[in-house]
């Protein structure tokens, strides 16, 4: 490889590209291998979702369901009101994403690019809450929401995101904002642009990839969260999908095949959504002015 690199002076296009091509082939091969490894547990999930309980626990393990227990799927989706839960999850996830983008990008901008008294101290204090174990705040936070009369509503699941309590994303966005060339907004400011205008017309568009990352991560977080819904939602007709799934795990009996089938149904739309957003997401990275 290195010998070939030294030969680049020959000027032959083919040879010049050869190391890159080899490297890419190696990368591709590794990606295929790792993909197989990463997908294995999911394949396991999928095959279990199509098996009768008895077959799941056979040694040595079998890969192919025999017979294919397709009925697990309609069973899973009718044993619990699955589509209602799906709708409920949407009611939580969408406002969560919007709230996170709103509160975290504003705060991150102030922390990254504006100068104001005690900025870094306040930032450090906010960051310290990241280190806070969840259990420490569980009861007192519940007491607050309960006192306000919001138990058994989605308010305690959504409002915290509009108040930037997920400082993780403030940190993430601040890192991105700080990395933007300072000259950009300095120039704009000299041109007479207002801070809000700089934020809206310059910083946000340049940060689309970061905002997308935040949107996806916070959306997935809300989608998969079952601890908060469990604490705050009392009526089973208000359950989210993640919480609804846990109903398959009983105290004495667990309906594993149904759990696996329902889990598969939950994962598939997310995979599709992610597959398409990641393309946009990566394109938007290359489209930003960051490269030059």
């Amino acid at each position, binding site marked *: 490889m290195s010998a070939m690199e030294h030969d680049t002076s020959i000027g032959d296009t083919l040879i010049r590209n050869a190391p890159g091509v080899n490297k890419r082939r190696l990368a591709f091969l590794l990606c295929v291998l790792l993909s197989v490894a990463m997908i294995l547990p999911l394949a396991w999930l999928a095959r279990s979702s199509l098996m009768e*309980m*008895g077959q*799941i*626990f*056979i040694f040595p393990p079998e890969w192919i369901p025999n017979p294919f227990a397709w009925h697990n799927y309609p069973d899973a989706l009718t*044993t*619990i009101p699955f589509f209602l839960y799906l709708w409920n999850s949407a009611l939580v996830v969408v406002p969560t994403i919007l709230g996170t983008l709103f509160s975290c990008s504003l705060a991150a901008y102030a922390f990254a690019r504006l100068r104001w008294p005690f900025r870094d101290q306040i930032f450090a204090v906010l960051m310290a809450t990241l280190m806070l174990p969840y259990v420490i705040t*569980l*009861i007192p936070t*519940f*007491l607050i929401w*309960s*006192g306000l009369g919001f*138990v058994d509503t989605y308010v305690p699941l959504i409002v915290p995101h509009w108040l930037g309590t997920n400082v993780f994303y403030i940190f993430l966005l601040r890192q991105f904002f700080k990395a933007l060339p300072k000259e950009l907004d300095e120039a704009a400011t000299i041109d007479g642009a207002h801070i809000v205008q700089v934020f809206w017309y310059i910083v946000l568009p340049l940060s689309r990839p970061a905002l997308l990352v935040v949107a996806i991560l916070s959306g997935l977080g809300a989608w998969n969260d079952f601890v908060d819904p*469990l*604490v705050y939602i*009392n*009526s*089973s007709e208000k359950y989210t999908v993640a*919480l609804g799934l*846990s*109903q*398959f*795990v*009983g*105290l*004495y*009996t*667990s*309906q*594993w095949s*149904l759990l696996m089938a329902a889990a598969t149904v939950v994962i598939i739309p997310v995979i599709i959504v992610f597959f398409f957003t990641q393309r946009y997401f990566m394109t938007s990275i290359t489209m930003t002015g960051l490269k030059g």
Partner: protein
Amino acid sequence: MTTFSRRKALALAGAVALATGLAAATPVLAQDCEKVDLTFTFWGSVNEKNDIEAAVKNWNEKNPCIQVKPMHIPATGTNYVQKLTTMIASNTAPDIGYLGESQAFQWATEGKILDLSPYMGETPDQQYIKSTIYKAGDTLMGTGLATGVMLIYYNKDVFDAAGVPYPPAKADEAWTWQQFVDNAKLLTKDRSGKNATDPAFDPNAIDTFGVTLPSWWGGWYPFVMSNGGQFANEDGTALTLNSPEAVEALQAFQDLIYKDHVMPNPTQTSSLPTGDVLMQSRKVAMSMDGMWRVTDFSKLGINWGVGVLPKWKTAETVVLSVPKVIFSQTKHPKEAYEFYKYISDPAQVGLFKSGLWAPHEKAYFTDPELLKTWVLAEGSAYPPEAMDAIVDYTLNHAPQQAPVYQLKNIGQIMSEAVEPNIQQLMNNKATAQEAMDKAVATAQPMMQGRW
């Protein structure tokens, strides 16, 4: 749906009327009683949930004045307790609910659980099975939801193939421990078909195990009791699991795995959801489990039966239950108690007939008419020998209450002192004597006496 919304509309109209000071002038048309709303929290699988919700719906139709809202809480780990704790801490406790035993006792002493003595009388043990009456100090928390006795389930086909007699269903005929081990050896087969008595038997390639016993206390404590051992001393100031009787029984338990090779080790079984599935696929011949598994076994389509546990000195088992309590924050104790009785009534709740719950009132074990509401019901899930192995066994051979009834701070004692050392025992990292000496020593600072 329509009636519900009409009632709701009426209630709303009533509220408006009250607010405008016209309450006295507005006649109540639809109801001749004041409507009471109750909340009932419970856990359980989706099937249990559906069954309970159907029973509650039935109640609500019959009792328009006492409307119960069922609140199912998925029970993964300690979710249920967490949820209940937050509800009580914020003064929004349910009216009625299931409750884990260690919390029930503790919360009763904190005054969070209604004393049911005025409702149940001074001598509830005349009416109810002793192991299902919960009393903490002066507070009678009430009874358990239902009962469930520890039993042996077995696959008849595997027994027939090995020529081994079925485990007896009558407590008087219970196998001795030695008989149990001998039979288990005949049932244990390696991949080449040799049983565990064969000198050429390969313990590393076992295809069918003779038996599985649970590793939680329900799996070993009945044998400790049967051998005359006890969980703790009289005043609850020390564990006595390192007594010779307890150690003998526990050592024999460990030997089933590592010496007799008739039982899978806990790592082999603990991740499996249920023993019934193992039995269905003929991985085991016998499985010790709670009576509540009748519902699972009855759905497997295998040739199964139930028998009593093997004995050391006395044929004994343990009856498990889950406290069902009324929270003291309730505003309607009388109405709550009505529902309290209803939800454990075999005539109302299908879970008795389907083999998940056994009743907690003695009459249901003796009265032929009442037996027809569950074990002898049309289409019940129980096998014929259940009259001995469940009915008689529960009523006459479970003389002692489980450890959870006896000790304060049992949750911590179990999870920090007993369970880790039982795990060491089951994983062959310590002998019974070593493990239990350590458990007793570790538990010492946690001991707070008996209830």
